[in-house]
Each structure stands twice: as structure tokens, then as C-alpha cells.
């Protein structure tokens, strides 16, 4: 194969420490990740693992303190503002919270046309494009004249997806895009993501704390633990028969929706926890 | 903690120096006019003006003049009034005592009444809530100047219960003192309650909506403890900030009230001194006014730090 669409190597991010003369806190300690065209790569981790930070670094919302991010072979680690704005056509985002990711004071139509016009489309073209986009994400075209608060969580997330698709990007960073949604909505929105990928060939970086969600959409999965990538591999392998002890722990902790299977999983988890407590506890970490 | 206090104190002093310096700078273009008016229209020959300026040290560079003043202040010497030859420190202190006695009494009353009303309104609602909202509206609608005059008219002129004007020092006659400050204090208290009670009500309501209130209830903890201990403590922070602003607002209001009631206070003093161009007095008044502001802000921050454990790590 040719160069991957996105290549992240040895990425480090540090945030300034809290308080007077505090040392910076490094939240990513050298992370590698690559995403090919049309591929969906899941990134799994718990709170504090740094999974959101990787996404934000790729989007240019946080400045890396080390390492390299390359998009289509071109270094974008510290792209200047102008180059960054041009990248908006290539890399897009869908955030977790559909309630705060849309400006409450703007109509859906304005939310969707604003970036298009910004990138040089005429108002007429932009409007036509918005109609197509709304159709693609399964929203009625009269949504254009409505405000975000008139929609349910799932519908807002569809608007957010339409906004991400608007410039025809090659990569969408999806940061927990379904975790704020209800169960039934969650499944439908995930199917929409898959459907869009099949039709457009866009690549996804799919960030989630939920193994089941990641398993559903990803081709490959990476597992993050406290700023380190501990395991990367094909989705079914990593999410059902992982190698790394942390991934195994994560898998056993996630309850299965089947009382019998869950009892077995729980007992297995408790057995391991006891074994770990009895043996050397420090080694694995 | 001590380090934090020292740091804040240092910042406060730097601000006070900056404020007085800027004031001095702003005043400096009018020094000539001041000297002219001091000499009177006939005596203000260019030679006389120059002589007086040299005499007062006003012919030196501004920074030197200011540093000279500041050096005096650091030794406790605030200068001498151009017109009365009274030491500025004494004059300012005696005037400040009058103003502060009114403002502090008014503030204390406002706080007690506002906390009671605000707390009751926030968790009981009903009649108390309507009273708080109406008082606060009326207090905002009518300028305090008009309220003060109305009170003078009713209590002093019509009913003759209290003296309309003048001030009796506390040391001379406590009852007379109380009588002389009653109407000015009431005039200030109305505005104070209007502001504070609404703010305390708002802060309490915000806090009462928080999740922990429900959780405390489910543990069987009594309403009194929830409201007066848990919620009030958390609402006190935002309310305190408003309180410190209210103190400064009252100081401003007192300047006008003093004029209505002919009280020999700070505002009156500032007014006459600036009319005369009495530079040492103006600087003394500015310095003490600034130190008051700095002190109030520092105190507010310290109490806030004590109230809020998260802020304490500093």
C-alpha cells in the first residue's frame, strides 16, 4: 500500500500544571497510530487515558509537545493557522455531546452553510449541498430553518454528522459520538456512520470508552491506558480475545447483556482479581 | 496561606501606589490654575506664581514630586493642607470616621436583614419572596438621593423626631450620635437591602438546585441544617463578592447623603478640597479611599478562600 491517510508517530502532549510554577503534566507519552483511506480505527480507553487528546491533537485543537502527525504524507504537527484552515476540507469532527456541539443560537441551515461559504461556495451551491447532506443523514429538508433545541439528541448528532460531511473530508474524528445517546438511537446512529463510510469512503478515527461501540464500527482497534498505546490490532481480535492484561481487564469489566454469560464473566473477573491480589500486584502496570 | 496573604497584600500596595500616581499625573496639568486661584486674581503675577510653585515644590519633575510625597507617606507624613495648614492625616481621619460610622452601621443592618429575607425567600417562596422582589425593585427604581430627601422631609421636617442635619460625634453624646446618623443610615440601608437581598436570594436558589441538596435530604438531614449550614455556606461566596461591591457603592452613596444631611464627612471634604485645589488633601483623600478599596477586596478574597476549600490550596 501507499502512505496511510493519517500517520501519528511518537505523539506527546503535555498540559501546563495547575498552580504556581507547576510542572507540565504529560498526558500522552509517545503514541503511534495510522489510519488508511476508508478505514475505521477505534481508539478505546478509560477517562484519563488521553484518547480525546489524540483526537484534539489531530484536529489542531491542542499543540503536541513532541512527535509527528502526518496527513496524506504531509506533516501537519504544527501547521500554521492558514494551513490548518485549509485542512478543514480534509479532516472533520463529530463530538460527543450533541447538546453543546451545535451553537444554540444558530439555525441548522446556517450551521451547515457557514463552513461551506467560508471555503468559497456560493450561497446557492451551499444551500443545495445542505439539502443533499440532510437527506444523507436522514433528516427532513425543512430542518434548515429550525434551531438545535427543537431536535432530540439523536437528531442533533445527525446534524453534527452532516456538518462534518459538508466539505467532503477524507477523515472524520469521532469523539464518543454516541455515548450521550439512548440505546436505540445509538444503534441507528452507528449504522448511519457505517453506511456513510461505505458510500463515501471517508476514514474514521472512532474514539470511545465502550468496547461494544468500537467493535461495531471499527476495522482495527487501539487501546490506550494512561497515555500509552498498549495494544493495536484487528477489531474482533482486540475486542474479544485481547493479548494485553489491561485490555483483558477492560473486557471482563464490561457487563454483557445476558444474565448467564455475565455471571460467568463476573466470576472470571473476580477470580483474576483475587489471583492478582495474591500474586505480585505491581508487575502488570 | 501566610504567603498568599503577603502576596495579595503586596499586590494591593502596588495597586495603591499606581492609583495615587495616576491621580497625581491627572491632576498635574491643573497645578498652574490652582496656584493662580490660591493667589487670587490680583496677586497672580507670573513672578508670584513661579515663587509659590518653587515654594510648594511644584516646579520639579512630576515623578520627583510624587516620590517626595510617597516618601513622606511612608514615614507617616501625609503633608499639610495648603489652605488650613492642618496636617492631612488628621483631617482625613476625622472625616473618614464620620463616613465610615454611617456606612458600616448601614452595611451591618443591610446584611442582617438581607440574609434573613434572602434565605427565607429562596427556600420558602410565597409572601417573603414577593416582599424581597418588591423591595429590591423599589430600591432600584428610586434614586437613593430622592429617598434620602424624602426621609428628611418626613421624619425631620414633618414629624420632627430626628435632627434633619448635622453630626454629633459618638464620643460626645452616644444618643445624639445615634439620632444624627439614623436617617442617613436608613437612606443607605434601603438601597443596600434592595441589592443584597436579591443577590442572596439568587445565590441561595442556585445552590438549592444542586444535586447534593437532594442527597442530604435522603439521609434524613433536617431542612434547617441543609439550608443554614450546607447551602448558605456555599451561597456565601457569591454573596460576599456582592457585599464588598455594595460596601463600595455605599461609600459612594454616602458622599451624596452627607451633602443632603450636612454631615462633615469624607465626600464633603473631598468636594471642598478639590474645589480649592488643595493638592496634599486631595492626595490624602485618594490614598485613604484607595486603601479602603484594597482592604475590602483583600478581605473579601481571604474570607472567600476560607469559605471555599478548593481555593484554599493557594
Amino acid at each position: 500500500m501507499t502512505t496511510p491517510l493519517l500517520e501519528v508517530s511518537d505523539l506527546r502532549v503535555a498540559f501546563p500544571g495547575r498552580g504556581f510554577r507547576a510542572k507540565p503534566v504529560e498526558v500522552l507519552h509517545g503514541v503511534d497510530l495510522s489510519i488508511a483511506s476508508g478505514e475505521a480505527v477505534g481508539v478505546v480507553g478509560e477517562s484519563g487515558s488521553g484518547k480525546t487528546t489524540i483526537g484534539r491533537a489531530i484536529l489542531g485543537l491542542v499543540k503536541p509537545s513532541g512527535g509527528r502527525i502526518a496527513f496524506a504524507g504531509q506533516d501537519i504537527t504544527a501547521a500554521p493557522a492558514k494551513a490548518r484552515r485549509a485542512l478543514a476540507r480534509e479532516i472533520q469532527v463529530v463530538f460527543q455531546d450533541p447538546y453543546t456541539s451545535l451553537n444554540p443560537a444558530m439555525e441548522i441551515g446556517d450551521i451547515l452553510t457557514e463552513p461551506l461559504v467560508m471555503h468559497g461556495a456560493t450561497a446557492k451551491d451551499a444551500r443545495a449541498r445542505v439539502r443533499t447532506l440532510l437527506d444523507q443523514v436522514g433528516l427532513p429538508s425543512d430542518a434548515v430553518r429550525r434551531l438545535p433545541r427543537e431536535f432530540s439528541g439523536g437528531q442533533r448528532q445527525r446534524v453534527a454528522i452532516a456538518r462534518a460531511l459538508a466539505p467532503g473530508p477524507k477523515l472524520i474524528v469521532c469523539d464518543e459520538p454516541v455515548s450521550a445517546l439512548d440505546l436505540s438511537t445509538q444503534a441507528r446512529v452507528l449504522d448511519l456512520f457505517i453506511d456513510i463510510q461505505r458510500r463515501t469512503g471517508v476514514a474514521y478515527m472512532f474514539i470511545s470508552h465502550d468496547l461494544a461501540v468500537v467493535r461495531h464500527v471499527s476495522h482495527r482497534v487501539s487501546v490506550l491506558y494512561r497515555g500509552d498505546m498498549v495494544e493495536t490490532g484487528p477489531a474482533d481480535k482486540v475486542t474479544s480475545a485481547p493479548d494485553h492484561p489491561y485490555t483483558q481487564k477492560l473486557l471482563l469489566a464490561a457487563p454483557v447483556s445476558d444474565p448467564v454469560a455475565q455471571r460467568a464473566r463476573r466470576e472470571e473477573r473476580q477470580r483474576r482479581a483475587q489471583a492478582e491480589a495474591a500474586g505480585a500486584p505491581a508487575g502488570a502496570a | 496561606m501566610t504567603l498568599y496573604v503577603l502576596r495579595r497584600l503586596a499586590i494591593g500596595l502596588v495597586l495603591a501606589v499606581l492609583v495615587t500616581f495616576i491621580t497625581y499625573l491627572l491632576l498635574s496639568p491643573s497645578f498652574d490654575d490652582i496656584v493662580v486661584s490660591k493667589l487670587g486674581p490680583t496677586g497672580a503675577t507670573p513672578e508670584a506664581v513661579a515663587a509659590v510653585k518653587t515654594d510648594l515644590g511644584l516646579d520639579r519633575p512630576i515623578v520627583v514630586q510624587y516620590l517626595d510625597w510617597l516618601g513622606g507617606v511612608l514615614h507617616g507624613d501625609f503633608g499639610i493642607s495648603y489652605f488650613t495648614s492642618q496636617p492631612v492625616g488628621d483631617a482625613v481621619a476625622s472625616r473618614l470616621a464620620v463616613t465610615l460610622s454611617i456606612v458600616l452601621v448601614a452595611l451591618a443592618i443591610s446584611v442582617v436583614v438581607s440574609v434573613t429575607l434572602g434565605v427565607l425567600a429562596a427556600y420558602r417562596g410565597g409572601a417573603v419572596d414577593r416582599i424581597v422582589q418588591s423591595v429590591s425593585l423599589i430600591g432600584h427604581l428610586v434614586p437613593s438621593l430622592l429617598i434620602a430627601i424624602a426621609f428628611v422631609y418626613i421624619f425631620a421636617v414633618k414629624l420632627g423626631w430626628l435632627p434633619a442635619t448635622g453630626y454629633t460625634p459618638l464620643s460626645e453624646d452616644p444618643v445624639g450620635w445615634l439620632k444624627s446618623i439614623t436617617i442617613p443610615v436608613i437612606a443607605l440601608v434601603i438601597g443596600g437591602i434592595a441589592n443584597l437581598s436579591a443577590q442572596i436570594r439568587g445565590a441561595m436558589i442556585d445552590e438549592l438546585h444542586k444535586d447534593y441538596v437532594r442527597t442530604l435530604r435522603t439521609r434524613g438531614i433536617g431542612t434547617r441544617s441543609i439550608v443554614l449550614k450546607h447551602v448558605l455556606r456555599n451561597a456565601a461566596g457569591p454573596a460576599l463578592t456582592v457585599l464588598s461591591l455594595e460596601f463600595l457603592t455605599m461609600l459612594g452613596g454616602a458622599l451624596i447623603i452627607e451633602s443632603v444631611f450636612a454631615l462633615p464627612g469624607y465626600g464633603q471634604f473631598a468636594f471642598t478640597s478639590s474645589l480649592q485645589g488643595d493638592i496634599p488633601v486631595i492626595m490624602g483623600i485618594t490614598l485613604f479611599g484607595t486603601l479602603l478599596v484594597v482592604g475590602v477586596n483583600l478581605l473579601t478574597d481571604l474570607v472567600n478562600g476560607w469559605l471555599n476549600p478548593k481555593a484554599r490550596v493557594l
Partner: protein
Amino acid sequence: MTEVGVLDAEVAPEPAPAPGPGRRSPWRRLLQDPQAIVTLVVLVAYVVLGLLADVIASHGPNEASLQAYNAPFGTDGHPLGADSSGRDILSRLLHSINTSLVSGLIGAGVALLVGVTFGLIGGYYGPRLRSGTEWVFALIQTFPGLLLLIVLMPITKGDYRFTMLIFGFLLAPGVYRITRNQVLGVKNELYVDAARVSGLTDRRILGRHILMAVRGPVIIAAAFMFGTAIAVQSGLAFLGVGNNQVPSFGAMISEGFKNLYSEPMQFVWPSLALGILTAALVLLGNSLRDALQGARRKPAKIAAPVVAPGAAVGSASPAGADDAGAVLVVEDLAIAYPTPSGELREVVDGVSLRLGPGETLGLVGESGSGKTQTAFATLGVLPPEAVVTRGSIRLEGREVLGLSERELRTLRGRSIAYVPQEPMSNLNPSFTVGAQLVEGVRASTDVSRAEARERVMALLTRVGIPDPERTFRSYPHQISGGMAQRVLIAGAVASRPKVLIADEPTTALDVTVQAEILDLLRDLQSELGMAVLLVTHNFGVVADICDRIAVMQEGRVVETGETTEIFTAPQHPYTRMLLGAILDEETVRTDGPAAVAVPLGTDA
């Protein structure tokens, strides 16, 4: 977010976009408020009168005539009379309007210009620039306000416009702080990030997304500052600060005050004019606040749930008759909230549940299904606006609905207890963990402080806190979310309740912590013989811990049954739909990476 907060937003069912409430723009809302219209009309009238001052009045404001000395109301040529210098009162009033309005414009204008500009800069750009602006405004705030305006008389030379310019700077810190806080709040909103990712320039983001959010509070502040500037100018003029050739309400009031006993009307006219003007500004500010920020918050009463008058509340059958073997019985419970139009809308509509001793019942449903409302009702902690319209809740055979807060208090902690969803927001940030737990123990049992402390220490150890002594002394922000949830569980089980209501107790936690908390709940339950009502949306949690399940949809229980039964043979279509939506372990993505890249929207 609790379910209560989501009520309005999430009631709309997924498929059809519902025309939401409050579609009207704030400006239209403002124009429907009679108070706003009246005040606006008053203000426009003032402006017009001020502009036409020279046309309406036949005399100049400083034109003194000896014949007119103290002329009374209705004198020919002096409709409102004249003052002790023989100047026409009407003319002075009209010209004073101009002085006031110019004062307001300068004062509020300077404050807005300075405050908003620096607020946007200080809020949006990095902390380094912000600390600079903070210093400048801290300095401005240190100036002793009104005193400064008096002290600077030698340089303002009595020009009120210059004085108001300085006053504008003194007002600016307030605007700065409002703007900066709004910007700081908004700038980390995801929609601003999204705008940045969309390739918008900083200028456009500031101008379009951020200014929009800042606009409301700043407009409100502007109305109040306009009033303040006018009041201060009048106050200064009353004191005599300023040129006495400039007609102003303050100066007129001052002159009237000197003549108060002989010619009271000379005092009344300017007072009325000033009073009405400032009152109109304050009332307009209030109307603006209502229109732009929504109605002011109502008091948050702490009281037992309101039972609708005449509602059929209480057991339909003789108390306890069919409660045998149940610690908690909910029967035909309905809870309603008032809609903006004043009608009641039911969010819980006839819910019935039975909870046996030592049993765990999962109350499952999506957001807006009413599951949390049902849980709050059993604890008697519904929000004050909620109304129970019918039904019965019996705790150990005793009717709970209709009890007062005081009576409920005797049940809480001992008979029924609660574990919330968000561990952090459910602890009071200002008190140590230990103090909060001790107070709970002492409220529900008769033990001394020392005994309570001992019991709390034992509990903290029991719930798996590694260093109980230290946690006891910690403030909530010093412990992790998982630890905080253990603390809350300790608080709930402290007095050995018969029933534990757990509302999404693991939703806010990481999966690994969730597993530990579920283990803890299971162990405590068998140890204490508690019955648990577990509110959740997560079927994995249900499968892990629940004996029975009740499935809720739009305020109703659609299906109840043994956990294994419902997972293997769900009866109701909604349950089947929910179970079908679960992303199970078998669903793995099978298709490879998409090959072709056709950009969307090109109509290929």
C-alpha cells in the same frame, strides 16, 4: 445530567422533529411584554422631548428674568413656573433630559466599548494576555469610584461629559468581567471547537459565535449602566460638581431642596422627571433580562412532593392487604409538571412496582421514560414544580404520599436511602467527607458524635476505601470519582435501610470502576438484606445485578418480569426493540475499509 434537566429537551420522540417551545426570538418576546413596551415608550418620549427642547420651551434654560422670580405653576409663558433665579422650569427640565441622556450614552458607551473589547480579548486568547487585562481592570477597580470623580474636578473643569468619560472607565470592569466570563464559558463549548475545525478564522468565531453568546448579558448590563450613569451625573450635579450653566436634574433638585419649604414644586418636578427616567431604565433592564435569559428562577422549596388537590392518592385496597412480602409498593403512580401554558403534563402515568425484601429490581428505560421521576417520588424528593396526580407509594406498608417533609425525614436513611448518579455533584464541596457522613448518621440514628464517627470509619473501610482516615478528612475535590461513589454508598447504607434507591449509580464511572461498584452493591445487599431499586439504561448492568426488571416507556411500565425471562423471551415490542438495539459481542464489523472515495454532496 439528571433526567429532570433533560425533560424538556428529550421528551420529543426520535423520529419526527417536534416544533419546540420558545421558537419566538427574544426581541419578539420583549415586544410582547407590556412592561417593556411601556418603558420603551417612556424612554422614546424622553428622547423626543429632549431633542425638541428648544422648540417646546419658549425660554432658554439659563435665561433669567426678574419678573419670573419663583413664578408658580401655570404662569403665562412659564407653564411649570420658574425658579428662584427666574429661569423657566420647563425649559430647564427639557434641557436636563439632554444632559442625562448624553451622560448615559457616554458613561455606558465607554464602559461597553472598553469592557467588551478587552473582555473578548482577555477571554478568548491565552492566559498570558488575560493576566495583562486582569491587571489593568484590577487597577481601574482600585480607583475609589465616585470619590475620584470629585477629586478630579480641577482637571474636568466641571465638564460633565469629561466626568462621564472617566466614569465610563470606572464602570468598565463590570462589563469586562461579564464578557470575559461569558467568553471563557463559551470558548470551551464544543460548537466553538467545531467552528475552528470547520476552518473559520478567529475573527469570524469571535464575531459570530462568541459575540452572540455574550450579547444577552451585555445588553442587559448596558440598560442598567445607562441608569447608573444618569444617577451618578445627577448626584454629582446635586453636590455641585460641574458647571452650573449646564441644566441638569441634579442641579435642579439641589436648588429645589434649598427652597423645599417655600416652593416644594421646584423640588418635585426634577425629582419626578429623574425618578421616572431611572425607573424606566431599571424596568427595561428587567424586561430585557426576562426576554434574553428566560424568566427569573423561582424559589426552590424544600418540601414533600405536592399532591394535586382532590387527587386519588393512597392505597386503593386496605393498607397492607396485598403488600405481603413487599417492602416497597408503587401503585398507579402519576406525576405531572406544569407546561408553560399552565396545564399539567404527565411524565409518569400509572406506574406500579413491587419490591420484595432483599430483591433487586431493575427499572430500565431511555431518557424521558420517567424512571428517575419514579425513583425520586419514592424518596419524596421530587422537584418543587412536580405534582403527584394519583397513586400510592407504600414503604413497609406505610403510605408515603401525603406525608410532610418532617415525617418523611424519619423514614429517610433508616427505611429508604439513595445512591445518586454523579458522585461529585452529590457531595457538598465545602465540607469534609467525614463531616457529611457523620451528620447523616446522626440525623437518622441516636448516637453520639464519637460513635457516629466510629461507625463512619467502619463504613469507609467496608466500602473498600484504602485509607479511610485520610478520606474522612478529605474534601470532595480531593478524591476520585470512584472513591466519591463509594463514599456516597457508605452514606446511603449507614443506617441499614430496608430499601436502597440507586439512580444510575455507575453511569458516570469507568467500566473497571463500574464493575467494582456493582460488586460492592451486591455484597452490601446480601449483607444487610436490603431491597434495591436500580434505575438504569444499561442492560449489561441489569444482567449483572438485577433479579427482576421493569421496563418503562414514556411514563408507563410496559413489561415486568424475571431478568432471565425478559432477556430470553421479551413480550412487549418495545422491550424487544431495546434488546435488539444492544451492541452485543457477536456484532463485529465484517466489511473491509471502503475503497472508493466519492465526496458527499457532489451529487455523483
